[in-house]
């Protein structure tokens, strides 16, 4: 009888230790976090940039809003760029008075049901990012997640 009680206690403990499911615990995001840095210094320095528009050509009338405004509304040091779940590549244009910068990101979308009471979610992993105009683009973290503070560093 004692072994039966021990066995039931073991089962109860095993069930108790199962992961708690909550839709809000899913931390995947659908945008990459892009930060801007000065290219003309040896010390890594944040650069405040001002673009007239940041947009994806296939998405009409849709401007990216700044994630974190800095000093003035038209300057930013960081922005979020959404990835298209129906594709594996997205190109954004950064419009200025003189030049349109271009940034392309290639990635793998991954669909999953985190918990059956939540909507399915896409998670992304960046494969590469490149630009013909910016001085350089560095991928510092390829996982798009709420806890990741930077995915791409753009030097200009």
């Amino acid at each position, binding site marked *: 009888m004692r072994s*039966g009680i021990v*066995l039931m206690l073991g*089962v109860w403990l095993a069930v108790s230790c199962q992961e708690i499911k909550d839709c809000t615990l899913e931390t995947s995001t*659908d945008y990459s976090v892009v930060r801007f840095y000065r290219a003309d210094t040896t010390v890594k320095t944040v650069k405040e940039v001002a673009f007239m528009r940041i947009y*994806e050509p296939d*998405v009409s009338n849709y401007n990216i809003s700044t994630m974190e405004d800095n000093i003035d509304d038209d300057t930013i040091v960081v922005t979020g760029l959404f990835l298209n779940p129906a594709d594996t590549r997205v190109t954004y244009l950064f419009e200025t008075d003189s030049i349109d910068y271009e940034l392309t990101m290639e990635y793998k979308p991954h*669909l*999953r*049901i985190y918990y059956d009471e939540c*909507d399915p979610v896409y998670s992304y992993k960046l494969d590469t990012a490149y630009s013909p105009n910016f001085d350089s683009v560095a991928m510092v973290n390829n996982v798009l997640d709420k806890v990741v503070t930077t995915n791409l560093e753009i030097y200009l």
Partner: protein
Amino acid sequence: MEERRRGQEQWSLACGFKMAAVVLGSILFSTTIVFAQRPAGQRPQPSGNTQKTNSQLPKEPRDFRPSMLKLSVDAVPVGISLFGADRSGSGYQALIDFDQFFFAAEYGTQKTSRGELYSYKNEGSYFSFGPEVNFLKNNAKGNSLTFGLRYGQAQFSDELSYLKTGGFFGDLQVEDANPDLKARWLELTVGLNANVWSNLYLGYTIRYKVLRQVDNIGTMAPYDVPGFGLYEDNTGVQFNFYVGWAIPLREKFPEPALEN
């Protein structure tokens, strides 16, 4: 408001089912324990005026010839198929003994449908096999308290249909599928099985499943893995309750022939 009320009703219905399952499980568990602890069916001990301790008795040679084949049906998926609207399945197990060891083989099917705002369907079959050791030694009735290790494998497919709304790139109708998924894992099992009447056996198995691997995943991760549990959980715990019938192959501990 109506949706919330319906949701609450479904939640209370699900809770009711769970409570009923727990109560039923407890009753079956107790019954099995009681039958397994009956003193009947022990190996005949040598009789005589002088009592000898086990260490003094001559060691009998082990007989690894199978004495019975137990064929069982898992009552848990049967219950789920009868009372659950979104899941159905079946499970069968065959056990054959070799002295105090068993070889167990299991086969089952599982069909799942999930989601209110999306439609996810999963269908497949699974099997597992492996050795078990019986800690109830010298039990002629075939009662067993076993610990085992099994290799499990599943072949299944799934599909998802979902309308993703409010995204930066507009609404998107998502249709995704994995037509040929294969999964494999290992199970540690603890089981109790008891003869309750004639050749009828009742028993349960508790499994702890580890080292889950799934091949041929496309852009969508499966949610269910038949025979294992949820893909999101890297480990799984499962309870099976078996109702089985034993086919005797020979008498396990025949009474010694009377000497003239």
